[in-house]
């Protein structure tokens, strides 16, 4: 792996670490600085995968925010006496920490750095006040065996620097939900050890989006890629609010070997009036239409296969098809992390003890095939 090259936003403090960092400057070993999500986006870009551009508020930026504002001390005080089994006290402490964080302004320096990065991102995308997704990128999240998935927040279709800053604070505060505090206590992470990064990523104006596993989540079959999709942003699929369309693709040949088209009653899309993302009802006549065309399924599966090959392991991927771009270059990968369920499972080999063909044939004949 190349040495990590950081952006030029070193501050006047006694540190070499940047407060923000462009995704393309992140690599998979940048997790301590930019968290799992942003590190993986950097890694994907590096691997040649089409990822919407963006930048991260680094853990260094997070620490600066917590230190400059005095929040660090306040959190320490509030959590000192907490008994994690006392859920009510836990929730009370969480609520006051989160309220305090969300009300806390950024230092001028930090605000300038973020605003400048956002301005450059808008410039790059050719869209004034480009709509972005703001999501937390935790340093312990996404790691095999310690899945924090869903414990931090994602905000969609955020426009303008003030909104971006505001949602950055919300992401930071999501590190202090009652559940997250308890989880860390139970798993032996200290609060000082844990830092969060916040990713700011150009919002794909998705026509269709969803998730993709490069392993069959139901049976661990590594020879397939499983894709779930719905119209609009991927949130409806990720959150399980709809039963998405479901496709099984042969990883070796990229044939679609199974498809289930579901009735999709809602989808998330941007409300152009007030520029926010919200759930809307899918028009009746479109509810049972396949939400991802076959060519895109094949293209997406091919991308999934490349990502798996790059990481050398089965992956869990979020993706979107951008409606503003022409076919052939409009599928984006928003997120990729190692699959954790089957990868950590110990399974017995399928082979017979002798591993000769005869041994297997005999064992198979003796077992027979069940007919019910």
């Amino acid at each position, binding site marked *: 792996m190349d040495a990590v090259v950081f952006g030029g936003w070193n501050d006047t403090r006694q540190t070499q670490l940047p407060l923000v960092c462009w995704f393309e400057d992140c690599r998979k070993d940048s997790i301590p600085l930019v968290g799992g999500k942003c590190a993986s986006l950097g890694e994907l870009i590096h691997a040649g995968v089409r990822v919407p551009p963006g930048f991260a508020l680094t853990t260094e930026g997070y620490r600066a925010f917590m230190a400059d504002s005095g929040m660090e001390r306040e959190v320490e005080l509030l959590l000192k006496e907490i008994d994690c089994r006392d859920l009510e006290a836990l929730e009370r402490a969480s609520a006051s920490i989160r309220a305090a964080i969300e009300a806390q302004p950024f230092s001028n320096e930090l605000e300038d750095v973020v605003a400048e990065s956002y301005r450059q991102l808008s410039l790059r995308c050719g869209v004034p006040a480009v709509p972005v997704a703001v999501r937390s990128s935790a340093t312990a999240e996404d790691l095999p065996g310690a899945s924090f998935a869903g414990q931090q927040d994602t905000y969609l279709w955020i426009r303008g620097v003030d909104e971006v800053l505001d949602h950055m604070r919300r992401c930071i505060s999501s590190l202090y939900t009652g559940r997250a505090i308890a989880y860390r206590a139970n798993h032996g992470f200290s609060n000082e050890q844990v830092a969060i990064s916040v990713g700011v990523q150009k919002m794909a104006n998705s026509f269709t989006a969803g998730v993709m596993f490069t392993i069959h989540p139901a049976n661990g079959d590594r020879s397939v890629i499983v894709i779930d999709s719905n119209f609009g942003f991927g949130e409806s699929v990720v959150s399980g609010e709809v039963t998405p369309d479901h496709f099984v693709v042969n990883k070796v040949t990229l044939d679609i070997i*199974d498809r289930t088209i579901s009735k999709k009653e809602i989808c998330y899309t941007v409300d152009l009036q007030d520029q926010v993302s919200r759930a809307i009802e899918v028009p009746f006549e479109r509810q049972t239409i396949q939400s991802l065309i076959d060519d895109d399924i094949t293209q997406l599966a091919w991308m999934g296969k490349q990502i798996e090959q790059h990481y050398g392991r089965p992956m869990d991927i979020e993706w979107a098809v951008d409606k503003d771009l022409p076919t052939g270059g409009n599928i984006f990968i928003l997120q990729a992390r190692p699959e954790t369920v089957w990868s950590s499972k110990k399974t017995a080999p*399928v082979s017979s003890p002798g591993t000769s063909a005869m041994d297997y044939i005999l064992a198979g*004949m*003796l077992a027979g095939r069940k007919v019910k």
Partner: protein
Amino acid sequence: MKFPNPHDVTAQTIPGTEGWERMYPYQYQFVTDDPVRNKYEGDTFWFNDALHYPEPLYPFDTIWDEAWYLALSQYNNRIFVVPPARGVDHRIINGYVYISPVAVKDPEEIGSRVPHFMERAGIYFKNWDSLEAKWKVKMEATIRELEALKIPALPDMEPLSVVTDAVGESEGFHLLKNYDDLINLGIKCWQYHFEFLNLGYAAYVFFLDFMQKLFPSVPIQRVTQMISGIDVMMYRPDDELKHLAKLAIQLGVDPVVTSNADWSVVEAALRKASRGPEWLAALNKSRQPWFNVSTGTGWFHHDRSWNDQMDIPLSGIATYIGKLKQGQSIERPTEKIIAERDRIIAEYRGLIEKEEDRKQFDELLGCAKTVFPYVENHLFYVEHWFHSVFWNKMREVAAVLKQHGVIEDIEDVWLLRRDEIKQALWDVVTAWATGVTPRGTKMWPKEILWRKGVMQKFREWSPPPAIGTAPEVIQDPFVIVLWGVTNKSLADWAAVQEVKDPSSIEELKGFAGSPGIVEGRARVCKTVAEVSQLQEGEILVAPTTSPSWAPAFAKIKACITDVGGVMSHAAIVCREYGMPAVVGTGHSTKVIQSGMMLRVDGSTGLVNIMR
């Protein structure tokens, strides 16, 4: 899943067919007068072998059913001592064959069979290639013997040489003896047919089983793609047509070859054409043995060979000449196919995580690749080459019976059991020797007429896919791979029974034979003779296909069959040509009509009729 009781089915005799049982061997009947056998039959699971017998069986054609009843069972049970499986039992209802795998039930007996199986099967697996080479020698010798076999006519007076050479035997005796020899050669050929097949299928089945355990979603066609050979005999007849097409152009006789669809006209013209005889000589070389390829599966007397119906290979040659003239390539893209096969093997292997599983994969794949050429090639030797010659020898026997008035038409002979033919020959021979009229002349024509009526009624009857009591476990590798007896297929069979109105069906399910999706117009060809109606770009819908259908595949863009699994001819050829195939749909030729718009998904095995 509930299936009818076999005795209830047999009890409902079709009116007008009373006494049909005498058309088949007595041991094929479901019985009511033997309580022990009756109970066994009721407690057993029987399924209709529609894979081999889509139509009711002619009494004579029962010969191959008896031949494999014996051969498959003896190799499983008495020769290789397969631990949990004995043979496959047979019955016939209204002309349709029902079969049932017989298991070894006592665990101790299964255990005691294991060492014998390991020793005996081990010898074959270990020495596969050298034993297979010996097999080819035996098999070719058997076919030569068959070709040399004479079916003598009965002379008014034996030639003088019988006396001068002191032969001491008459042509009457030779007729009886050579008929026996003919039958025995057939039975012997089927002994060889199964010498390697049980083990070959076992190797294939368990490679498939292993792959499905490792990769539950792996399509069967991917597994067959890994082992299918490129250089199998099945492609030879078609390759000969391509060769002859090129040669015709090279010799400049292609306008003559394509001048008429009738072979006799073309042949006469070629004899007169300059360099025509040269081309005819090359054709005659190709004909033996390659044009012995049957236009059907070879299992039935009505499956004629290319040699019998030269118009069929002629139309294939004409198609290829047309393609070559248009500058199109007629070669199978073999290099591409081999590269793709190797890529698929490497990718699947790369997805295996455990070292021991990778080793097992290599072992099983190696074994399956070793056995595979036999599994394909035996078909050409037995079902095509031997059978095509055999049916014509039988027609020579029939000609003698016809000459002596026992049957009215040569093709009537198939309505007699082979032991009845033997009796009729005795009748003819003794009457000939004595100088009287055979008794059969007044007996058989009447019986044959009645049997023809019975066969027609049988054809109109729909056999239930399965009867009796379904077992919990099936251990016979044949039953699993050839007939695909699984929970799913049993459920599908149960469902097929319930379809009353074919015009209401919009979707047909079969096996995913070759991947890809296309839409197009259907062309239903019930026999290979109808292949000439095929238009470029149509979707072929056929009961089943065989190598003699090869020229059809140059025109179509997808193929659907009633009968056959992913190892069937249609599936293999479509994979070679890279076009979708859905095979084993059960009744597509009954449901689909020519001209209907179809959507064929060869990756999932679905056919949609766009009504």
